């Protein structure tokens, strides 16, 4: 059984009259990439801050490496906050060494590692530059190096992709994968579902401070009704014909002389069964498209079925 790195049990946090996180529980297991998903303002950053002991929960329990979050435990954690920043007047290598030393790395070793990582991130030339002289992308790389410099076992990234251009987003995805391959445990929050879908072993969905899903990406996708889109050029009434396969609705047609339908497959029904029924009935199909669900759809569906209002989701 995998070791639990982080555990939140029934954690609640209120600010004034607003409940930011409500009775949330989840675990992060060693060696996994866990995605912490939800729209802006869902309570992701608050949960992560409580995970590190930066904020104290009003109720519930947080344990990091099996203990209450303490400074000593934090040496094993690398945290990239959502609001990123560095000491602008310091030299790049000095900033990296400073954060490494805060995490307990010896000065000489910190410098050696810093220079090596700068080389890996193609920033060796900027080592002696001041942070304020760097471009935004370069500064973000320095921030990531500062997060990873002490070779943490557990890496927490709060909205790591926000503010990055597509090229740097890809580069960051590669870094996340490389860290996972090196045996590190990762937890990252995002409101962009595509990243999580590509990277995560496990996802936790949160909306309005409430956890609405905790499982694998496949589990989440399985929650979404599988859908088949059909278009017919014949006069068959698909409402009657396919009713047994699930919930069918007529949609506005895309072309004149055709009719469009959308079928949400019920429990055991498959797209092949639907296709066979149409062929057997002599339906003249101009379109038959089983739709692959995305995490975005899963999130919207899960929020809808949880009875909570659907927030803006990208």
């Amino acid at each position: 059984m995998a070791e639990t790195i982080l555990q939140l049990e029934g954690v609640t946090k209120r600010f004034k009259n607003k409940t930011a996180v409500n009775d949330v529980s989840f675990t992060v297991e060693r060696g996994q990439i866990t995605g912490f998903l939800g729209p802006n303002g869902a309570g992701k950053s608050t949960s992560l801050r409580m995970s590190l002991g930066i904020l104290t929960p009003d109720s519930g329990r947080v344990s990091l490496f099996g203990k209450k979050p303490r400074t000593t435990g934090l040496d094993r954690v690398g945290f990239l906050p959502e609001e990123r920043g560095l000491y602008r007047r310091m030299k790049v290598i000095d900033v990296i060494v400073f954060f490494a030393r805060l995490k307990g790395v010896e000065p000489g070793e910190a410098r050696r590692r810093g220079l090596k990582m700068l080389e890996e991130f193609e920033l060796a030339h900027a080592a002696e530059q001041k942070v304020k002289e760097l471009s935004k992308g370069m500064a973000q790389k320095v921030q990531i190096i500062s997060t990873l410099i002490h070779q943490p076992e557990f890496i927490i990234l709060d909205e790591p992709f926000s503010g990055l251009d597509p090229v740097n987003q890809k580069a960051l995805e590669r870094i996340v994968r490389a860290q996972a391959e090196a045996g590190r445990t990762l937890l990252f929050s995002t409101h962009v579902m595509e990243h999580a879908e590509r990277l995560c072993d496990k996802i936790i969905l949160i909306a309005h401070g409430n956890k609405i899903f905790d499982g694998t990406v496949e589990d989440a996708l399985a929650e979404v009704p599988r859908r088949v889109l059909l278009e017919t050029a014949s006069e068959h009434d698909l409402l009657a014909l396919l009713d047994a396969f699930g919930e069918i609705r007529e949609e506005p047609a895309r072309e004149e002389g055709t009719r469009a339908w959308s079928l949400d497959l019920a429990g055991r029904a498959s797209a092949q069964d639907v296709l066979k029924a149409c062929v057997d009935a002599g339906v003249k199909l101009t379109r038959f498209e089983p739709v692959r669900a995305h995490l975005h759809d899963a999130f919207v569906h899960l929020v809808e079925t949880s009875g909570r209002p659907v927030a803006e989701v990208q």
Partner: protein
Amino acid sequence: MRAIYLIARREYLSYVATWGFWLSLASVPMFMALGFGLPILIEQSQPTRYYVMVDETGGELEAAIADGLRQAALAIQEDALEAMQEMTGENPQLRAAMEQNMPDVDVEHGFVRVTDLPDTSLEALRPYLNETRFLSTPEGEQPLFAAIYLRRNGEAIEMDYWSTNLTNPGLRESIRRALRDFQRRERLVTAGVSPEVVDAVNALEPEIRELNPQRSSDSAEITMADRLPVFVAVGVAFGLWIIIFSVVNMLLTAMIEEKGNKVLEMMLSSSRHHEILTGKLLGVAAVSFTLLMVWGGISLGGGVAAQQAAAAADMPIGDILGAVLDPGLLLPALGYFVIGYFMYGAVFLAVGSLCDTLQDAQTLMSPIMLVMMVPLFLVMVAADSPDSPIVTFASWVPFWTPFIMLARLPQEPSQVEILTTTGLMIGTAILVIWGAGTLFRMGALNQANQETVKNWFRFGKKTATG
């Protein structure tokens, strides 16, 4: 401890690596040098000024002026000789050498009388005074600074002083004083008083002794050495205020900058709020100690050097240094500095953590600044009236205790008063630091801002309108 040390170290290095720090460091000795050197430089760089004196009495007043000025110069020289004697002890050879080398007496330093103009009537001199004609001098062509006409009108003496310069009264005043003394002496002699008696009367001076009733008659006389601790304590209290005020402002601006840089959350993943707060306070405290050591060292060195100089012989430099380095003042000053610094520093850090810009901070700073300004004025009052009830009361206000109690120390307030005010001050400092830490924690994570603090003071308004 590691985090506190690293944060303090980073803070310290971030300040000492700036030009601003070195400018601050240089500013005090620079201002001291300017304060002492500038007047001398101005005086030395002043061009020689030429004047014409016309004595319509045939030379009587001219001679009186020369004599009066000589007497005044001799009095100054005598003071210098006495000061030298006080410093070196009785030394007839040195005294004789100094008397021989006394400079020639001039009306006023930098003024030269012109005597070779053929026509000294006002009409002839007017072009020189108005700078349409110039005198040939060793320094080249120069205008005439003043034309002075002296005459008698019965017993009265009249002087017409023509000059386009409205601001430099040196020449006019020297001559006026000389003529006044001459006129008074002349009147007394006319009235039958012998010149010897007049001179003896002018030399009379009451002998005043200031005595302390708490001492025995042998040692009751109050000297400069007795007064010095009061002045030094007030000076040190001022210095303390200036240093605390300077460095806490550094904390405020650095905190706002750091919040703007959004670096705090990254720090919080490695250290706790109290470690960041303490590290910053210690880092800037180290900066202020560096300033203190350098400024103190320069002042000490300057004092010792000044002691060696004959020019400063009439200043009790040794006594001043002794009073500054007196452990009875130095140790409490250090203690008051540390507590005052932490108390105000924590408040300024908390304010900085609540604000995104200096403009935001100004709203919150205004009342704090008012609180900080009060001891500055009260310390001045304490110098004149250390037993004033207002000063005594103010020294019990914990925010003002570090400065006012320090200024009061030479007056030897009761032990109970010292201990109680110190206890109150330490208790308040602990409360303030705790409260500031809470605010800092909220501000650092944007859970509070300046509006939060403002809302605390709006209860009355809400009740009134609500």
